């Protein structure tokens, strides 16, 4: 992984911190001994980097999820007959009014993938992207479908895909959470979307929000840095003394270590979120003004910085459970939402590519379901889980292709169905996992992300 933008070397940081502290030169010796990032992490550290089942193409995932259900027939699934019939005022099966997309489709890049003007910047990256037009979910309600795309289950509480990946791969940077969620608002089903459920709690997604305190309790509250150093140093002394008569308790030792990690996070997280060292050109790529700390561009650039620093699974959610892509009354509401994500997402792809990171980073662009090719009211569309679109790019994925077909109207899948379980199986495959073997024993049964289903979509693998 790239560490070019790494903060001041940690060893140096710890030395300056603890040598200046009041009590304990021994403390920093201990901490320094533990400082080797992943190298010295014991087996009992659930976040130690682990090898997957086979050599992976992708080392990490950036998972972009747009709540509410963006319309496939307005974005990535070009249906000439839908446009033609809608314009002629023909009805679907003689009953329902067909609605033509509001955005023009054009062939893009060398591959000629059809993408509409809803996403003109993503369209520029068509040759990197594998569009899937035959995704299928199990539920037509936001809440359930949102859990479906994240956990595989539309009914029961289950661990999020990010938690599964963290559980399977651990993480490369112990100073940052393995699974980060950048979400300005809560999506449907709230924090369940990134819950570890029965997996160990360390695999839970950590929500990072732009602003004063990006992660709860991240900011130092002690009156000064020196006082916090003194507190940590004294705490270390207390704990080591306590441990002396309780040797061999790995949990006590692990807890001592968590303060080091927490301190590391307190130092490193603000640094990750600080975009001041990014060049004008980079900011421009993401559509960001200097100093801007909101918007999807900010989320995307932070995602790249996290990817560089070894975060394993980074989820980006653009909006919350309301005022989102749920365009029941007017498809025009897609426009500002698309504008918010389009340039930034394309910028992320281009930036990753130019830094040589795209090959090892799997980028996922998805939603909980598509929208009906027929009209709801006069200008809107309803929920449609029976066929919809998403795309994958980067590590392990063949770019510039389109997989799966719907019928003439984008109503039903005509060829190569990709169920959400298959989608998940494919993502895990890119990370080096046999999805049937990434299991966790809980309540007497081995659970997995794909339940008892799923097969890898081999045709889209690089």
């Amino acid at each position: 992984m790239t560490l070019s933008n790494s903060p001041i070397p940690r060893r140096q940081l710890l030395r300056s911190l603890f040598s200046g502290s009041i009590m304990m030169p021994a403390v920093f010796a201990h901490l320094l001994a533990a400082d080797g990032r992943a190298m010295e992490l014991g087996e009992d550290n659930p976040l130690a980097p682990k090898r997957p089942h086979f050599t992976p193409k992708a080392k990490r995932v950036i998972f972009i999820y747009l709540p509410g259900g963006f319309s496939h027939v307005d974005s990535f699934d070009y249906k000439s007959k839908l446009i033609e019939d809608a314009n002629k005022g023909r009805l679907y099966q003689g009953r329902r009014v067909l609605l033509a997309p509001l955005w023009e489709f054009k062939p893009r890049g060398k591959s000629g993938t059809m993408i509409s003007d809803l996403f003109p910047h993503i369209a520029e990256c068509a040759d990197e992207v594998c569009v899937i037009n035959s995704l299928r979910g199990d539920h037509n309600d936001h809440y359930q479908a949102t859990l479906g795309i994240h956990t595989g289950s539309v009914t029961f509480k289950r661990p999020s895909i990010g938690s599964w990946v963290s559980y399977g791969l651990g993480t490369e940077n112990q100073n940052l959470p393995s699974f980060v969620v950048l979400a300005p608002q809560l999506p449907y089903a709230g924090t369940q979307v990134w819950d570890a459920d029965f997996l160990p709690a360390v695999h839970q997604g950590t929500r990072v929000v732009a602003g004063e305190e990006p992660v709860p309790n991240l900011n130092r509250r002690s009156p000064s840095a020196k006082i916090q150093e003194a507190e940590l140093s004294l705490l270390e002394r207390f704990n080591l003394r306590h441990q002396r008569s309780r040797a061999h308790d790995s949990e006590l030792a692990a807890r001592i270590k968590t303060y080091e990690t927490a301190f590391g996070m307190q130092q490193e997280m603000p640094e990750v979120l600080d975009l001041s060292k990014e060049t004008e050109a980079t900011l421009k790529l993401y559509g960001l003004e200097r100093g801007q700390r909101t918007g999807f561009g900010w989320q995307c650039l932070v995602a790249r910085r996290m990817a560089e620093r070894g975060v394993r699974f980074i989820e980006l959610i653009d909006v919350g459970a309301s005022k989102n892509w749920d365009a029941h009354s007017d498809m025009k509401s897609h426009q500002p939402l698309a504008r918010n994500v389009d340039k930034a997402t394309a910028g992320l792809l281009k930036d990753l590519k130019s830094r040589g990171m795209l090959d090892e980073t799997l980028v996922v662009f998805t939603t909980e379901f598509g929208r009906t090719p027929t009209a709801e009211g006069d200008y809107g569309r309803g929920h449609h889980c029976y066929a919809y679109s998403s795309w994958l790019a980067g590590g392990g994925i063949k770019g510039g292709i389109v997989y799966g077909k719907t019928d003439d109207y984008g109503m039903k899948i005509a060829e190569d169905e990709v169920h959400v379980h298959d989608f998940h199986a494919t993502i895990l495959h890119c990370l080096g996992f046999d999805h049937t073997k990434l299991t966790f024993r809980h309540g007497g049964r081995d659970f997995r992300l794909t339940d008892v289903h799923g097969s890898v979509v081999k045709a889209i693998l690089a």
Partner: protein
Amino acid sequence: MLKHGESTKPAKAIIKTLTLSVMVGGLLLMQDVASRATSQEAGKEPSREEIEFFEKKIRPVLADNCYGCHSAQAKKLMGQLLLDSREGMLKGGTSGQPALIPGDPENSLLIKAIRYTDSKPQMPPAGKLPDQVIKDFEQWVKMGAPDPRKSQTAAASTDWQPYDFNEAKKFWSFQPIKDSSPPQVKDTAWVKTPIDNFILAKLEEKGLKPLGEADKRTLIRRATFDLTGLPPTPEEVEAFLNDKSPNAFEKVVDRLLASSAYGEKWGRHWLDVVRYADTAGCNSDFPIPSAYKYRNYVIKSFNEDKPYDQFIREQIAGDLLPSKTEAESFEKLIATGYIAISRRFGSRNKEFHLTIDDTIDNLGKAFLGLSISCARCHDHKFDPIPMRDYYALYGIFNSSRYAFPGQEIYPHPADFVALASGREAERFYSYQKELTELDDRKEFLTAEKGYAARNKKLKQQQAKPAQSTASSETKAANEQKGSPNHLLRGETASDPKPADFDRDADNWSRAAKTTRMPEEVEAELREVRARIAQLHDNPVKVEKAYAVVDGYAHNARIHRRGDRNNLGDEVPRGFLTILGGQKVPADYKGSGRDLLAGWIADPKNPLTARVMVNRIWQYHFGQGLVKTPNDFGTRGAAPTHPELLDWLAARLIESGWSVKKMHRLIMLSRVYQLASAHDPKQAAIDVNNDYLWRFNRRRLSAEEIRDAIMAVSGTLDRTMGGEHPFPPENTWRYTQHEPFFALYETNRRSLYLMQQRLKKHPFFEIFDGADQSSITAPRNQSTTPLQALFLMNNAWLHEQADQFAVRVGMAYDNWRERIDYAFRLAYGRPAKDEEIKEAMAYLRKVREELQAVKTAPDRLRRASLASYLRVLLSSNEFLYLD
């Protein structure tokens, strides 16, 4: 938790389901007719193995893929071919040839059809069956097509069971409890109670030597947290140290058991088991303001040492138990909150079968240690629980009526039970009923609006008015309109509704038949809205319970593959076959929940007492004798001390199911009082301490951490918690887009914090609080950097440390005593000289630093002490229990 499969129904299956749903249930009747009509064929009866082959591999495929068109119940019988009896298969359809020739798959039309070869017909029309299924059919025909449907009566045909129960009963947990006498041990002096005989005998057998006893300070800290969830006060510690009598510890245990904090601590354990929450868990997570009454009932029950069998009866069927006073009857109603707090799903109240599943799942695991809900979609793969048994229980709960908290589309609470009588109760019931019916009417009209728009378009397009095509059915539907409050859902004796009645589908399907025009519908919708607003402005308030009462008593039919639209045989309500298979008598008045409660609480039930003593043991020792407290089935862990488990179970029953007596028995044993130190020799033999050669050190639970911090800081309010400050019901507008989310802070004990299903309280999220959606046991004990960050930087923690500083500072006027007092409060021990010296140096240094950052001079002492106390409160000695 084997509830998979729910999520993945391919489109094809859904279509099939639709066509099938109507007729499958008629199978039973058909068999009856067929068997009476047919003279028994000569030849041998199918063997058990053959029947099993048919039941597992053939019958489900026929039912799912063929009966829709080829059974007595088919809406339209195709080709005159019946595949739901052996006779029909042998007779064949309009082709004149038999559908199958036993022993000869190559010439059997059925096989040819399902092979999808070029010749017609190709069956089933929806698509070729998987190759394996086709092979199964070929094999079956080759076997001679053994088919229990030909030779048995309908009743007998359903006697087929997927398990050999006589064999299954040999499994340890299904065996009767064996009350064997405590074994002999070599070191008799070690034994304090008979429990120690069992423990020591195992240790001696394994060549293990137990550690010595914990010192008195450790012991009282251990016992106090264990029974009350709070740290011992310095006075309590001193009193115990100074009590040199031989029964000093016994006195401590009795004092703790008598304290009200005991019920709070052990009540919380039970709330973990029943996945208690203050909200519903539906898509909008509706609040349930009266749920707390059940929580407090649990606390009170533990404090009163309510016999455990009685506790079971009240929670499952309190509404059906006799009471001497009205107050008593109200308390028993509140107890059924156990059933009512089952999780809710969705936005439209369409998924009530999943709520019943959640009831059964929890009931099975909580009381019996069995994962019964695995049998929702198929016979249990590992334990002897057939689908029939699942639906026998399902029928009991489907015959009950659950209070409904409200949901996005039907936002008004329904079916709550008034804790009042006479006119007060009546006024409430009519208010509640009217709002419920208005919700239904409103949704009906919302649906109708769309269909009315269609009518209008048709009318505009056609010369003839749409009404001319209205069927008599449509007219009947229309006649229902009128003033809204006597419409629709109003359940009548002639039209009773099961608990899983899909009111949404009902509203929509009736609305589809409308012949009205949009204007009419709009007008009525306005009326309905106005009436709702009027009712909101004049709420009828009464004390009410989130409870369950009896509803429409009837048997359930099997949901094939867990699909409620694909109904199979009706099964009589009853209990698990492996535990006796008792049935609710056919003429029984009521759901049978009271009978079920009795079957579970029966001392002869081999699981109930075992599961409960194992839970008690687990909460004392950090691990159960059975390590999987919710799974006593074949996939669970075997007991480490089976004889002890049974002996304890027998004592629990013998004591009249007294939980407090069980605590005494356990805590006065030597094994409870062992030190928690390490010993490499013993660890080499038993690294996991399965045989309890030492006590298990543990981290404090989330509640204990928060409560202990407040207790030592002097900020803890020991008042029992009541209702949460939820917004009033008539203001609720929760949706999946804007779900209910709230945090209500309090200085009361942590179990009184409002707990949501969809969003954990941040503190519980960080420190492994219970899962509010499914049974928790044991709690996780994670160690994460987010916990460290909390202890370093959290505002609340800093506040507590500040209060702690004030408390300690006010109590003594010199630093030595202040530090010592802080140690006694936080750790239950005095500070050592070196620790006091260290503290002095630290405080001096921090004061200097505080001055450097311009802290007000009068805050220096307090702020420096608070800094020191933060360290105390985040140290391992505080957070762990030896």
